[in-house]
């Protein structure tokens, strides 16, 4: 699903944010990306989401070569990816329900069908009762979960999550991971950027470790 070969990203007048990254994540596979802050975790996710263009190497997502992706194709590429952002990226003047509805609205879903899906997604993250609330009235953890509901509502083939458990207590973190695991079991590929070492340890998935933009370790179920 995600195929990365010798991928590099360099910003103008700065060090390489990423260099020589090689890995592959298959259908229904779940992996963590770890590393200190500034190691390139977020850059990696941005590249996969086509928020940035790679400087070199090959990046193939859902069979699409992102190096050759045209401007007009980017939105359709993003619709197949559910992304959870560290800073949530919710619309403060829309309710929780409307926020989760947004991806379906954008891809032109029939409204009745869309409403059912939104409720199902909110139920998954335990926020069904807060559907009429506006995000600023929610706690950080709740906002994070709204972001997760929005990421999964479109039934994406890939889920990218940037510190999805950053604001959650251990119980909720486990819940969120269970949601991800359910998606994994139906064939969704999941890439989670996290520095929550204890969580990663308990879950025993593949771990890709980045340090200053380089891959220092790719340890996990595949390699063991």
């Amino acid at each position, binding site marked *: *699903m995600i195929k990365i070969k010798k991928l590099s990203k360099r910003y103008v007048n700065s060090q390489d944010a990423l260099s020589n990254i090689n890995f592959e994540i298959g*259908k229904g596979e779940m992996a963590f990306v770890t590393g200190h802050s500034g190691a390139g975790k977020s850059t990696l996710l941005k590249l996969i*989401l086509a*928020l940035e263009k790679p400087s070199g190497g090959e990046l193939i997502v*859902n*069979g*699409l*070569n992102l190096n*050759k*992706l045209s*401007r*007009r*194709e980017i*939105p*359709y*590429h*993003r*619709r*197949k990816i559910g*992304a959870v*952002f560290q800073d949530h*990226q*919710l*619309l*403060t*003047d829309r309710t929780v329900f409307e926020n989760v509805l*947004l*991806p379906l*609205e*954008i*891809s*032109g*879903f*029939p*409204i009745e069908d*869309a409403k*059912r*899906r939104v*409720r*199902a997604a909110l*139920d*998954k993250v335990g926020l069904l009762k807060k559907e009429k609330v506006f995000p600023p009235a929610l706690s950080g953890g709740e906002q994070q979960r709204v972001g997760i509901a*929005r990421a*999964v509502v*479109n*039934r*994406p*083939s890939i889920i990218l999550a940037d510190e999805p458990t950053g604001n959650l207590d251990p119980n909720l973190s486990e819940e969120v991971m269970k949601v991800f695991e*359910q*998606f994994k079991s*139906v*064939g*969704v590929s999941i890439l989670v950027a996290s520095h929550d070492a204890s969580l990663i340890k308990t879950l025993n998935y593949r771990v890709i470790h980045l340090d200053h933009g380089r891959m220092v370790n790719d340890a996990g179920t595949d390699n063991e």
Partner: protein
Amino acid sequence: MAEWLMMPVPTMNKARTSNRQNRASRRGSDVGTLQIHRKIALDSVKRLILSPLSSLMTIVVIAVSLLLPALLFGLNDNLQLILLEFQNSARITLFLDDSVSEPQGENVSKDLLTYNFIQSAAYVSKAEALEEFSLSSGLGEILRSFSHNPLPAAIIVTPTTLNSRDVNALAQRLETISEVDFMQLDSQWINRLSALSDLISIAGKLLAAIVITGLFFIIGNTIKHDIENRRQEIKVMKLVGGTDSYVARPFLYRGILFGVLGGSFAVFLHLIILMVFNGSLQELIQLYNSSFTLQGLGFFNSFSLIVSGALIGWFAAFLVSFRHIRGDNL
């Protein structure tokens, strides 16, 4: 409830989806598009109501701008009507030499009917002229005290054409007839009015061009501010796969809405101005024994005004939003 979560993901089959297939999948679900258009249109109305003062100011500026050329065009339309009413009275009066006898004069009059461009020629004898003059001026007593009738016989010619150059040429030709003492053309003031009307028409078009340019900047600038204020929203929409046209849509609706409301308000203002003006104009017109009334914009012109407002608004919003939304490298 969550059964859909467990359904196989359709895009996952086989190893590769090519770029071409990705392009094709766009044409997919159009089912909810109409609902979304309606929702966005309603939303743009809601936003307008949420900031009533700034919206109102923009709308008034648009209305006044549209009103100015509309008034000029309106003025010109009315001038044209006046011209039409009086153009029938464009006529040439040929005063005959005193030596020409009555039968001779009538012959000349008949001959004139063979000329091009002459619809009718009416001979007015000296006696008839005197009678008519007495009736209309009330000076009959004085004239009667003269030993002989001082008024000349005349032939009143009505041309078939209203074209001023043709009428002039005809008048000049008629003046050369030997029996004619002198000629008088009644249509000079109509020519002047007609020229004035042409001038107003050009001024109106020029003003319209200036106003349209101005409106582009006014509406464009307003929309640009909206885009700046909604940067975060635009960003989020793009993150979850909103296309440029999806993101731009609310702004296009907003531009159209500004144009339609501005145009409607201009029509309303036009109506009020007309009512105020018509009242005082009626007194003046009665002095001229005319039944002339000022014509309003009418349905078609009102409609055109609103539609032009909408088009200007849409196009200004289109240019600005695509520039500022596409420029965003998301």
